[in-house]
């Protein structure tokens, strides 16, 4: 049953990626100007435009260019960047690693913190700690991340000079130097993503706490801590892992503002650059990675919630 579901989901995922690639291709083609025009910019002339279009194969009809890309993609060839001429696998390679390192570090810090804080707040609803957490998370959700980032830079880098203002990495850095160099983006992102996960954990558990079987447990005299950890948490875990998965996917694909402010070379910024230069193969490659990340993470989340919940494991 489980295997069947997984296979079906993978199939749907692949179909989704195909549809996304078509949509992204069409949307990018609709944008004004093509890569030749953007690359030559203010200094474009009709002759140089024509020469560059011919050189890049842009004079082919759009559907042929799409099919060519699809063919290359299926054989594992991501192609070369139309704008710069570098191999896309080279452009993505290092940045993929960077993105994964940052996402991994942020997830490693924020997920345990969020679940612990969320649980704690749920165990003591109405206490001062619960109020602080609720208010604090609401505040950090409503403040845009570029504001958090710029504020961090102003305080920690410019005024106190404790941390570097940008995440400009060198190859020969040790793990702790890397951690120091990445401290600012990590702090910013932990603040941004934790808030949602904390609130979801707290709300999910409190929601379950209202159900009759918990009331029964309370009447039987089971301590509150045990009720939450043993009886409530596993029923609440579905929505929680889904929120975690969405936040992880966001860390992979959506941290463009943090990448820009800290000048951290990651994938999200690469895709934006690709769109700005109408560099279709690059945009497509990034879109596939992001789409793939969402598909896989949501799949894991669903599997996780099924495994943790006997009622989903054994449906009637």
């Amino acid at each position, binding site marked *: 049953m489980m295997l069947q579901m997984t296979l079906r989901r993978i199939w749907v995922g692949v179909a989704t990626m195909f549809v996304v690639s078509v949509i992204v291709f069409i949307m990018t083609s609709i*944008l*004004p*100007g*093509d890569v030749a*025009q*953007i*690359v*030559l*910019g*203010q*200094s*474009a*002339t009709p*002759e*140089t435009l024509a*020469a*560059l279009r*011919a*050189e890049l194969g842009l004079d082919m009809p759009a559907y042929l260019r799409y099919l060519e890309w699809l063919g290359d993609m299926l054989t594992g060839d991501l192609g070369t*960047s139309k*704008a*710069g*001429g*570098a191999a896309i696998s080279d*452009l993505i390679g*290092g*940045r993929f690693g960077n993105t994964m390192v940052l996402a991994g570090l942020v997830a490693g810090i924020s997920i345990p913190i969020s679940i612990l804080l969320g649980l704690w707040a749920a165990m003591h609803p109405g206490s001062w700690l619960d109020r602080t957490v609720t208010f604090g998370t609401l505040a950090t959700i409503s403040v845009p991340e570029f504001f958090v980032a*710029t504020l961090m*830079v*102003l305080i920690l*880098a*410019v005024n106190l*000079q404790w941390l*570097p*203002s*940008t995440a*400009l990495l060198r190859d020969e850095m040790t793990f702790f130097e890397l951690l120091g160099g990445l401290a600012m983006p990590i702090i910013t992102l932990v603040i941004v993503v934790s808030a949602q996960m904390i609130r979801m954990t707290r709300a999910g558990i409190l929601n379950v706490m209202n159900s009759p079987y918990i009331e029964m447990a309370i009447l039987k005299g089971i301590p509150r801590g045990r009720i939450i950890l043993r009886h409530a948490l596993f029923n609440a875990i579905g929505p929680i892992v889904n929120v975690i998965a969405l936040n992880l996917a966001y860390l992979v694909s959506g941290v463009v503002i943090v990448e*820009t*402010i*800290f*000048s951290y*070379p990651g994938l999200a*910024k*690469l895709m934006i*650059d*690709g769109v*700005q*230069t*109408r*560099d279709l193969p*690059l945009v497509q490659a990034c879109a596939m990675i992001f789409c793939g990340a969402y598909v896989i993470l949501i799949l894991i989340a669903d599997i996780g919630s099924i495994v943790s919940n006997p009622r989903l494991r054994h449906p009637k």
Partner: protein
Amino acid sequence: MKDKVSPECKSDELNFFDLSPSDKCLVEKTIQGGFSRRDVLKLMMVTGVSLVTAQNLLFTGQQALAAMPKKGGSVRMAANLHGPDDQLDPPRFTSTIDYVRGRAVYNSLVQHNNDLTTRGELAETIEPNADASEWTLKLRKGVVFHDGTPFTADDVIYSMNRHMGDDSTSVVKSVLASIQEWKKVNSHEVKCVLNTSNSDLPTLLGLYQTKIVKNGTTGDGIGTGPFVLDSFEPGVKSVHSRNENYWREGANLDLIEITAITDPVARVNALIAGDVQLINQVAPSAFRQIEEADNVTLLSTPAAVQLGICVLKNAEPGMNDDFVKGLQYIQDRERVVKRILKGKGTVANDTPISIAHGPDFCSELPQREFDPDKAKFHFEKSGYSSAELYVAPVASGIEEVCLLAQANCAKIGFDLQLKKVPTDGYWGAVWMREPINVVTWNMRPTAQSQMAIQFGPGAEWNDTYWNNERMGVLLQAVLSEIDPAKRHEMMCEMQTLIHNGSGMVIPAFTNINDGIAANIMGMPTVPLGALGALEWPEFIWLS
């Protein structure tokens, strides 16, 4: 950083910099050798130098010692823009980050000085024939590429030919269109044959894109330049170390790293925090922050960088001269410079030529002042009561200029609507297409090329479609005119034609505003682009 000769030195007095190298050495050694000031002065007077001159020699000599370049150290530059389209192939250079990498790894034939004169770089001499239609370039001998290959005429011919021909995608193809052919004379001499006279050819050979690459290569980063490319990741960074076999004295820095921080606030913060040492494009809102920090300096170089509004002359409403006049008179130029540019700019007179172009600037042309009454008169005469202006933030301050014009138009009952569009795709979709749009132009090295590129009849980038025959005649004639008075007269006539007839509204020129660490010495100030037209890698040192 600044000129090291003290202003008190009168020109007829001997000073340190006029001495022969061996005398300089003597004075330096004497100063360093622990003699007291009195000893040195006595020594000089005995040898027959007057007291004033001797003191002067000593003073300038001490200054020169303080300004002696120091070897070593590394800097990191953060440009305003980078991406997967970063290039090492000179003909496709389009952004500051490409230009600086080009400057670090390659050389040009000709180099620009701070005062916009030129000197030979890979070309030792560059001589025109009588009517400047054929130029002979003697190339420097003993220059080698980073991989050890000697530099010869073949490399020059190959590199320069890439800007010509039907399949050329060079960014400067049309700028170099007057070149008909490059001919090899021998291994270290080439001839450049033009299809017309052009006394400004040397300046064209010093463009960012006319760098010399190795014969047969398309920009793999192997050049003859002061820095060797260690690593290059497009959209991330490049690292360069000093070329120890350089043909000139060589760079002072051991290592440079070139990257970009695209967020303007983050860029300034990184400079002040000391993470980077050079940044370009400092916005007026950050001037105070930089000026108040003591570890960084604001480098504001006056240049003819236009903040312009193009009104197309081949469409409504620009066809109507009165409409253009109205838009020109409603520009509050003083306020633009003082408030929007925070004083880091100059008032412009609806021509692309500024005082930064030197003697070719027509100071006789009366300045067009802010005059709402005249503007109202012309707008009413034109019959238009509203117009739509396409604005994108293509230059810092341009949006504010348009907003100010809008407010002033409203006061005289004219409805100037601003249509905001993104910079993304602007040059292909809006510029030279929409009837009224905004533009910025980097300063070109000569007044002639500046006007030819933008106002020549039928020129590729004639962005107001203003075609004036007389303008075309003068643009050509001025290139072969050698009498300075007549030349200036022609320059003035052209500027007057543009001022009165074209569709360009240019309220102000902005300075080039960059930020550098205060311990950077010897910073070039060529006004043709950011950070001294990116001439810095070879010349700066850290104090």
